[in-house]
């Protein structure tokens, strides 16, 4: 089996230019976690089924476990780390913290990015909108009601 082609892939990562030299077929998740030490996106299934690895690509949620590095060339990638800037934080972070929206918290960074994609596009979501936006993401601890409340709270704060 031939080794995957190694080359420099350029994309925008959390607002900054990134140039990564890596096998172009390497899943974005491993690039983020292991080459860039960005640990918010997490491995859950490796098959686009759970959403623990969700990040935004050009503003839309994508499962980074199944997305090859070459597929984000020239695109805009956002991870949950982008919600923190020094002492400042995105209203979604504040709302999740205030609602204690999470138990183990493993699923949260994927879910919060789905929520961000929703709020970026629809600043006045209904409960049904929020449910639809998060529904591909799984949570096993049963923090769903708090997570739904947190997203609604963040939408209020962003008004």
């Amino acid at each position, binding site marked *: 089996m031939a080794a995957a082609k190694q080359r420099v892939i350029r994309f925008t990562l959390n607002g900054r230019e990134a140039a990564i030299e890596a096998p172009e077929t390497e899943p974005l998740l491993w690039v983020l976690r292991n080459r860039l030490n960005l640990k918010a996106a997490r491995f859950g299934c490796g098959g686009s*089924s759970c959403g623990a690895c969700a990040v935004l690509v050009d503003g839309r949620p994508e499962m980074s476990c199944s997305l090859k590095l070459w597929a984000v060339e020239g695109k805009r990638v956002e991870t949950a780390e982008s919600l923190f800037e020094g002492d400042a934080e995105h209203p979604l972070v504040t709302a999740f913290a205030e609602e204690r929206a999470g138990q183990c918290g*493993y699923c949260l*960074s994927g879910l919060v990015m789905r929520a961000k994609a929703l709020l970026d596009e629809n600043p006045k979501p209904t409960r049904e909108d929020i449910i639809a936006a998060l529904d591909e993401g*799984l949570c096993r601890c049963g923090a*769903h009601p708090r997570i739904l409340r947190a997203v609604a709270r963040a939408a209020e704060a962003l008004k």
Partner: protein
Amino acid sequence: MNDDWMSLPKTKSLEAYPLISDWLDFSEPGVVKARSGRVEIGQGIAIALRRIVAEALSLEMVRVHLVAGDTRESPNENYTAGSMSVELGGQSLRAAALAARATFLLAARDKLDAETVDLQDGQVLQHGEETELDIWKLASDLALDIPIAEAVVSRPGRMARIDETMAEAGGDAIRARLRGGAFIHDIVLENMLHARVLHLPHPAAQLVFVDSEAVEALPGVVMLHRDGAFAAVIAEEEAQAMSAVARADSTADWDVPGGGIQKPEDLLASATELETMAEAGDLARAGNRKVVAEFSRPFLAHASIGTCCALALWQDGTLTVWSHAQGPYQLRAGLAQALNLDEAAIDVIHKPAAGCYGHNGADDVAFEVALLARACPGRPVRLAWRRVDELTRGSLAPAMTSRAEITLSDGGEIAAMSLDIVSAPHQRRPGPGKPSFASGPLLADPVALAPATEPPPANGGGADRNAVPLYKTGALKVARRVAYDIPLRTSAMRALGAYANIAAIELAMEAAADELGEDPIGFRLRHLDDPRARRVVEKARDMSGFTTDTDGETAKGLGFARYKNKAGYCAVVVEVSAGESLIVPRLWAAADVGEVIDREGVLGQVEGGAIQSLSWSLKEEVPIIGGAPDVPDWEHYPILRFSEIPVIEVALTGDPRDPPLGAGEIAQGPVAGALAAAVRRLFGLDSLRVPLTPEGLAGQMLG
């Protein structure tokens, strides 16, 4: 200082670790290091434990650093299980911190030659003014090897801002998880290797062939480690390990026992030995007015969102393991025996993983990575399971059936109740003398699993957990048959047998109320003396606007229990709606866990326990094919999603003067009971088998 003297809590842990210095360390100025054997497994215990120490010492919570589950310095408090962490671990730390407070105050009074002194965020106050003393200065002059039990302790005043401080600590825990880096999966050690295990198609599979040469020729692969049927790839990078294991899987030839689908009842058929777990009065004299109900559940997976993970370093004959196991000392004992090492040569360091709901694969993956580290001495190895491993390699939650029979007296009292339980075993954890790890039997030189057991009645029992109802029953008998020799590894999952037993009891209570033509909640209350029990039932009834009316499509049901008959009380009402599939649009819960240390934590545990129980009840099942669990991915093991969860309302009815009780396992049984009651009201079924999928329910309605 007020002189409101109080007695200290007593726990089993304090007998083994009686000194202040066993629990608390003040060597770093500004910081109090609190040691606990109770570990964070996604239940938020770290926050509750930090609050307990902060309050006892009148400290800001940020000063309290928790060192939990580290065999280098934490006390051995056995497993973090059974919802005992606040009750035991928390009360132990509280006693230690209160004793430390008393010691500091005594020393400060001596030094300042003052009658009244007080503490505020570590500073010693005299007449409300700061002095030159603080607890760290005092600690440096004191030997804190002082028996906790000898301290004369006064009750600390209520801390200002404690609710705000708790909210901040809770919020910061969420922030840490959003930001990344909070989990064992995120640990990066210098020179670390990455490993993946080959998919094991059957617990007793034999590995006939794997193309080691081809796999080891792949980029970055250090080795394909093979020992009997245990096989793993080790690579420089995680992405390389993933590619290599996929290739290894595709070349592997396994010898697996054949066989078709095996129903849980077939697998449990080996359970023949009848054990009587409780017996009171004479059932035979209770009469003949009987109702019977039955509740069955299949095998379940823990199905955490994160997969099991561990790291290990084998160096100069010593082994260091980073693990999310529930019992770090128990893991160490099991590892020592399985690896033929001295316990003193092993350190186990706990780091949190994704949610743990019982005996999952944390110990198993730790043993596996230790085997791999032994093959690569001097380099740390990190092993993370893949999704298929997470769903199939660890222990399953036991399938079980609980049958409840109620005999009614002429006066409409419960004259007798009996439960007959058939179950797979609930305990197979590693520990001293028990080197029980999934991969042990696979090795060329096998390490056999210790026989399956059941938790003793003193710990709440296993299959028989909550089989004795809190209701007044007249005569009572609980008998169980446990399939100890079942060829599947099953072990504890949240609530253990309480889930099915409470459901069976509540279903029978519904049938009995129907038989009498009585309101089902009134019937329950008539058989409940305990005022705390009555309060949660009444509260759930009132919150939900409970009614037995049904339009044939929606109905409400109530379920109640006191977990283990000695822990938290919980009553639940669900509203069930039957369309194309069964859904639960609304759920109300009332809970009494005594003193509430972390209100949002308790509410979250009840909500989460309720949702997980609904998920088990409506969707989950691990099919067994030819003796192996057949759930390779989430498509084969769906769980409840955002679009399927009810709107939930939880009320806490406890008295803060009652001792604090855990909340993580109080809702599961009552939710199953409430669901069973509502489904019975809709469809008249006295025998239910979950999951209540459309196909599952249709099959039961056809009989």
